[in-house]
């Protein structure tokens, strides 16, 4: 399989195999006009198999969304066909406006204008809790706001 090299853009590498589409949707990449390559099940020495997303345009990636969904992903910024910046994504300490609290007893359930803020309370198990009601967010596909 031959893919054109990116001149200017962003590459998201080391995505867990099967995870690319969720990131594609969560980062709203479907709204972009430029070419976006979704590479599934690429061979990886470290991971066995992995997914890769190549975006042929310099965009601001929402690192909160990415860090919540797929910690461990590598983001590479490409300029003039060269990698000018590479970042290994860690789970963010706080995420705002990424997910919504599902607790019907939470104040955010009746006051819609309140920002949904979650704090990382257990880094090992990637547990996020609502700052208002402390309810644990159960991570599942499609829970990005």
């Amino acid at each position, binding site marked *: 399989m031959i893919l054109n090299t990116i001149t200017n853009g962003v590459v998201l590498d080391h995505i867990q195999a099967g995870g690319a589409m969720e990131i594609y949707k969560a980062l709203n990449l479907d709204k972009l006009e430029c070419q976006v390559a979704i590479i599934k099940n690429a061979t990886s020495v470290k991971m066995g198999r992995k997914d890769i997303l190549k975006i042929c345009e310099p965009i601001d990636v929402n690192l909160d969304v990415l860090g919540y969904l797929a910690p461990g992903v590598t983001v590479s910024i490409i300029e003039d066909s060269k990698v000018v910046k590479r970042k290994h994504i860690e789970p963010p300490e706080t995420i705002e406006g990424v997910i919504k609290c599902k607790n019907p007893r*939470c*104040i955010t359930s*009746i*006051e819609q204008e309140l920002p949904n803020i979650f704090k990382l309370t257990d880094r090992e198990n990637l547990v996020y*809790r*609502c700052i*208002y*009601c*402390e309810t644990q967010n159960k991570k599942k596909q499609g829970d990005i706001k």
Partner: protein
Amino acid sequence: MRSLIDIKELTTQEIDELIVVAKDIIANPVKYLEKCKGKKLATLFYEASTRTRLSFEAAMYELGGNVLGFSSADNSSASKGESVADTVRVCSGYADIIAMRHPKEGAPLVASMHSLVPIINAGDGGHNHPTQTLTDLLTINREKGRFDNLVIGLCGDLKFGRTVHSLIGAMSRYNNVKFVLISPDELKVPSYIKQELDKSNIEYVETRSLEEAIPELDILYMTRVQRERFFNEEDYLRLKDTYILNMSKLAKAKDDLSILHPLPRVNEISVEIDNDPRACYFEQALNGKYIRMALIMKLLGVE
């Protein structure tokens, strides 16, 4: 400016200081009669309450201060759709300190983000109720004279019972405390609380049997199964009478057991227990006034 939203915000030393002040108020009430003269407490209660609201109000009056507020959401602008943030922005211009109860979890935290004066969480849904915990701690301290080396049984609704969650958090700070968590499967302590106990290496057991648990307890904290926490009436009716403490169950308990209950009681403690020397729940309600006096003084910076 400091608020109190969660008991975890107070250090162990601060809790000890509040208890010392509360005990001094009990011993020398006259000394405190004018400590808050000219100050106003706003009680913003979006949910019904007897003890908490009245004890806050009595506390402020006994400190020489004044009180204003509302006792249900229907009597406030919340019924017109006003947000907590807006209500608090307005009310913090009318009072020096605010006590807030709200049925939604996290509402007092939102209030503290927008208030010009200290906010005291007077209960937010099934979440936190720090002044009840301070009340419980003062009661335990007055009954037992210590916080260490205690076996504490918590019985009833351990899932939605905010007083239970806060008390576990507060008592976890002390040495050699063991929790016996007595509840039906449907009303067990939430997993995040058990995770915290595991992380801190604190001993606890879960059981469904009050009879089996009662002989080893130093403190028995009874709770009501709260109708208002259930979305489904059928579940409430099925679970409400799971535990009833009566004289025959109490016969197996230690002579120096202390029975606590945040009140209101429905039928989970038989009235025949009320005159037993081990029943402490009415003293506990009175302690609530004294510890709230100590807290109001602390948050207002009154010496």
